[in-house]
């Protein structure tokens, strides 16, 4: 593992454990991450018995070289962006652990699980009320958005 930065070392380790023992509904293509450890695409599947059952989504993770002290930039990408009150149609996710409440003790896996549970607890598929305005005005990087975590129940 020579020549790896501390963040890459940690990511390498996370990748290995995620490939070896993926949590249900989560899968990562090990090759994508091996080309560039700072950029991952993760496939997730809507859990059975939820509004998203059978749907497939892709999450993009971008890491800075300050990871894990600095949170990853996580967005939904691809054709299918889940319709959810905390997910904007451009893929940005309103989830406090991705910004203010990030902690280096969290991991890619725990972020995936949080997002899955956010989807699973949804009772009605709809976009956030300010979707149109936000998507038009936001920065490309969701971490630059000053999120207002209004509602933790969903």
């Amino acid at each position, binding site marked *: *593992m*020579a*020549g*790896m*930065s*501390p963040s*890459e*070392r*940690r990511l390498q*380790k996370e990748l290995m454990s995620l490939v070896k023992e993926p949590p249900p509904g989560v899968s990562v293509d090990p090759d994508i991450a091996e080309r560039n450890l700072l950029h991952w695409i993760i496939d997730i599947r809507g859990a059975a018995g939820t509004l998203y059952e059978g749907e497939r989504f892709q999450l993009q993770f971008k890491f800075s070289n300050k990871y*894990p*002290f600095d949170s990853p930039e996580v967005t939904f990408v691809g054709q299918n962006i889940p319709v959810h009150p905390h997910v904007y149609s451009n893929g940005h996710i309103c989830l406090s652990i991705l910004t203010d*409440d990030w*902690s*280096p*003790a969290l991991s890619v896996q725990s972020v995936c699980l949080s997002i899955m549970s956010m989807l699973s607890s949804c009772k009605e598929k709809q976009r956030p009320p300010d979707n149109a305005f936000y998507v038009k005005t936001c920065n490309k990087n969701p971490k630059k958005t000053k999120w207002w975590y209004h509602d933790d129940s969903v």
Partner: protein
Amino acid sequence: MKVFVGIEMTGQSVEFEQKFNYRRPMYTIFDYLWEIPQHRECFKNLAIEAEQNMEAVNPPIFLRFANLLINDAIFLLDEALANMAKLKEMQRAQDNGEWNNLNARDRVQNISYMQHIGNMARFDNILGKDTIITLEKLTSEISRVFTHSTMVDRIASMLNYFLLNLVGPNKKNFKVKNAKEYQFDPAGTVLKICKIYVNLKDSDAFCLAVSQDGRSYSPSLFALSEDVLVRIGGGSLIGEMKEVAEKVAKMAHEHEAREEATAEAPEHFLDPIMSTLMVDPVILPSSKQTVDRTTIARHLLSDQTDPFNRSPLSMEHVIPNTELKAEIEAWLEERRKK
């Protein structure tokens, strides 16, 4: 006097988000103050104070100052190099006559764009150089703040990165015509960068950080810079740079041995956040997790909470895990014998 220096520095951190314009006179003032022995003493005292409080809740002013300088240096030099590369590309296109085929409007646009980039490059070059000069001066007298574990990786990778760009295979990308006009002075910058290496070379942590920077460091980096030093009249630095290179190589070797040890170490010897073999394990009082001291110190710089349960935490409250430390050391010793 101390207050004066203090205001100076606070002012700087406040203004950081604002235009770099404000900063320019700062460097002039700094240069002036640095030459006055009393003021220089002041800087040194601030640095000593910083060193004793590296892990305090409110980062000491000198640490913030040093941190900002490094941020600036990275930003400015990076911008400068990017702009120089763009200029080079545009000059090439212009010379090849590629622009002759464009209609008049596009051509005018290109020319004004080139002027714009040129101006930016000039600005970045001047400020970037000022920043590097300031860093060089500071490191000549004060090294320990810069080689503290929370800083050392960044300064090492910054130096490596720019040295590599300026002496490595990319260097021709920045060779523009009339470099003087843009205040582009690669030779001067290389000399200053080398000087900073030499200033910091007594620190093991620094040499290790240099060798571990995966992005830009390779053993040939110093050989390349030696060639360049010969050409730009940095002969007197060569001997010292050789020492730097040797020490870096030695640290790299020792580190490799440690890496191997890490791969074989029992899981509880590893830092739960960085997965490295812990050197100085400490227990976090509320979550009872053990992590390496450098890891938690780094985390607390930006967030004063226990990463495992978010309860408030500061460096004074961590408890050394002496038992585990002894266990790790004994295990390493055992390994070394084999």
